[in-house]
């Protein structure tokens, strides 16, 4: 307990009171930290999301994720390999499922960027906003080269 108080003071001294309080608010006034007491970290995915499990709480509420981003988080940040574990579909953790991933053709997980701006969201191959928009021209035009 004493160490917590000491660490708190040390952090306030380093960051200043304002920064410390902002961080404190962003992390939910210790709510998450308190919630995590007694829970076991099952794994951390490539984006830094932590997956907790506490077998002493009510069944069905015993698995949760602590998002890496504390201010901008949404459920689509959970990669597919952890999705099953998190939603009680399977008891295999994401790390175990990742071992089955076919590296040849599987593409990386991408979160849903809807509402985050046109440059971030997905555009189909023929969409004008897609930087790699496919060329639907079915003819080759004459190029005025040498005269």
């Amino acid at each position, binding site marked *: 307990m004493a160490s917590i108080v000491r660490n708190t003071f040390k952090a306030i001294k380093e960051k200043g009171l304002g920064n410390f309080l902002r961080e404190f608010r962003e992390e939910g006034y210790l709510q998450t930290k308190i919630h995590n007491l007694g829970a076991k970290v099952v794994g951390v995915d490539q984006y830094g999301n932590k997956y907790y499990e506490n077998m002493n709480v009510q069944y069905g509420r015993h698995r949760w994720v602590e998002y890496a981003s504390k201010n901008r988080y949404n459920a689509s940040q959970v990669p597919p390999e952890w999705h099953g574990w998190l939603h009680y579909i399977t008891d295999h953790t994401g790390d175990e499922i990742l071992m089955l991933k076919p590296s040849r053709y599987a593409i990386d997980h991408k979160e849903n960027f809807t509402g985050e701006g046109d440059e971030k969201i997905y555009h189909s191959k023929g969409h004008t906003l897609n930087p790699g928009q496919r060329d639907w021209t*079915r*003819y*080759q*035009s004459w190029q*005025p080269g040498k*005269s």
Partner: protein
Amino acid sequence: MGLSSLTSRAMIRRILHTTTTTRSHNFSLIRSIVSTPELNNTASAAAEPTPDPPAPPPRPPVNNARVHFPNPEDAIEVFVDGYAVKIPKGFTVLQACEVAGVDIPRFCYHSRLSIAGNCRMCLVEVEKSPKPVASCAMPALPGMKIKTDTPIAKKAREGVMEFLLMNHPLDCPICDQGGECDLQDQSMAFGSDRGRFTETKRAVVDKNLGPLVKTVMTRCIQCTRCVRFASEVAGTEDLGMLGRGSGEEIGTYVEKLMTSELSGNVIDICPVGALTSKPFAFKARNWELKPTESIDVTDAVGSNIRIDSRGPEVMRIIPRLNEDVNEEWISDKTRFCYDGLKRQRLNDPMIRGSDGRFKAVSWRDALDVIAEVMHKVKPEEIVGVAGKLSDAESMMALKDFMNKMGSNNVWCEGNGGQPQADLRSGYLLNTGIADLENADVFLLIGTQPRVEATMVNARIRKAVRANHAKVGYIGPAAEFNYDHEHLGTGPQTLQELAKGSHSFFSALKNAKKPAIVVGAGLFEREDKDAILSIVETIAKSANVIRPDWNGLNVLLLNAAQAAALDLGLVPESDKSIESAKFLYLMGADDINLDKVPSDAFVVYQGHHGDQSVYRANVILPASAFSEKEGTYANTEGRTQQTLPAVPTVGDARDDWKIIRALSETAGISLPYDSLIDIRERMRTVAPNLLSMEEREPATYSTLIKPEVKKEIDPAPFKAAIENFYMTDAITRASKIMAQCSSQLLKK
């Protein structure tokens, strides 16, 4: 694994169950592969004779074909499925069934090829015949009773189908013929739902037949249609049958390419996917394609084609049946030139800047520049040249526009400096393409129909095969695919013929239906009037022109030529190019631009960046034949029209619309705004160009022809076409045609 064995076990149990309970229904566990179970126990079928069903109403002939009786007294009567049909003597049982409206399944039989009778698919039952007969090879006899849908006939066909499918690969999903395959269709009617063949299928090595025809010989069912086509129609003994029994295969004996200009047709006649189009391979499935019935413009024959397109792309070109023009064949150039429509296209108006480079501009700017220059030059220095692919509407607009500007120098390339457009018989194939096959003596003067007009050549070959017609040829050494006599190389032979001293003259004179064919390549010669008059002398002395038979023909080279002459695109002066200050090229790529003065302003309107664009000052993009509706007159004077299959590329416009817009910018608006209006204008000039799909024969007269005083130049005739595969802007842009000319042409 477990699932399938489970279901089959369950099925067996259910079958066993039903067999034990409903034994009276004659349901056995081992089901026959044949769908005519009554044949399996003939005893029970014979025991209970069924009363004759009431006769169905008579059907019209297959494809509504008309039956032609050469001799009305030779008609015989046969009974097909109980109906009496009258057919001419010499018809086969299969043809009799077609007249009766019964379509007999077949693989090897083709109405335009000789009868092979080796696929056995067309088996029918004939009364008093001990076993089913192959209807394609059996002549119909008077009073024959033919039954086409009896259990015996059906079982026979099912047996044939089972044998055919024994060695046929099951690769329909990746086969280009899938969806238009005869074997696929007929196996729906006569195929079994299971195979009894447990051994391995045979495999055949694929043959390399060149850049046009792809072979997958394992799919071949040995119908020999391609072999018969190659030897009978194409006239090249390239293909043949090797081996016997299960080792039988189609091949070229030794490794060689199929060097026929009709080779693409084997793709159409192959009933399975053994011979398919190489450029079209795996590009599209046939049910995705939109068909458009159009006309070919790569030569003057005007073959009827169907353009199959998907979206903005022409995917393939296949022939359309027209007995009067191309029957059901087309040349390789027609069939495979379509990839040229996608390359080297002009898609923006361009102006050549002061630095000599082209810059894309708007239509308004381009037209303004042209109109400004046109008003600066003298009217007689304005020259308009129509290209060899131009349609009649745009040529009409070009001529009207030039005339309104005060110039009368407008002509069409290929017609030479001073074409004779006064007498229509002077530039048409007067006999008609279809009637050429009745001729018995041909005199070909300066023309090589094999490269100039392949479909006309096929008719001549047909006449040589059927009537043993004699062919005499005057011109440079050339390849023919039929027997011919090379009489000479130049006008000197013509003079001998005119005097009657040449040995071939008597053959021409004694012929029942002689035909003289003059090549349009001679139009480029200085002494062409003298040559044409000496040809007329020969025609007169050999009595080639009779009331019922006009055997004096001119074989044109380009699609636009006949319509251009019909519309009177004749220049005022024969030195129009040399004195031009403003040259309007409407798709003219094959004229010699060296003589154009360096200060002349050249406008090129066309669809391909080919040869003339490099001399142009302004480029106006126009639409190609697959993108516009245009009227064309072919070499025999038959008017036909193209229809748009795909949209125009980029900013291109129809030819006549460009000229109409330019006339408005120049302040002399042409009085038509639509195709209908422009055709009304054509009606006043050449009404024959409005009677679509009809041939307007020319009346022949030499009385009003002016006397020719020019001397004959003894220089030998030259070949009109150097390279069969590359003759115009579209074919020169085509990659496939380039491959053909590098691999197939004999050097």
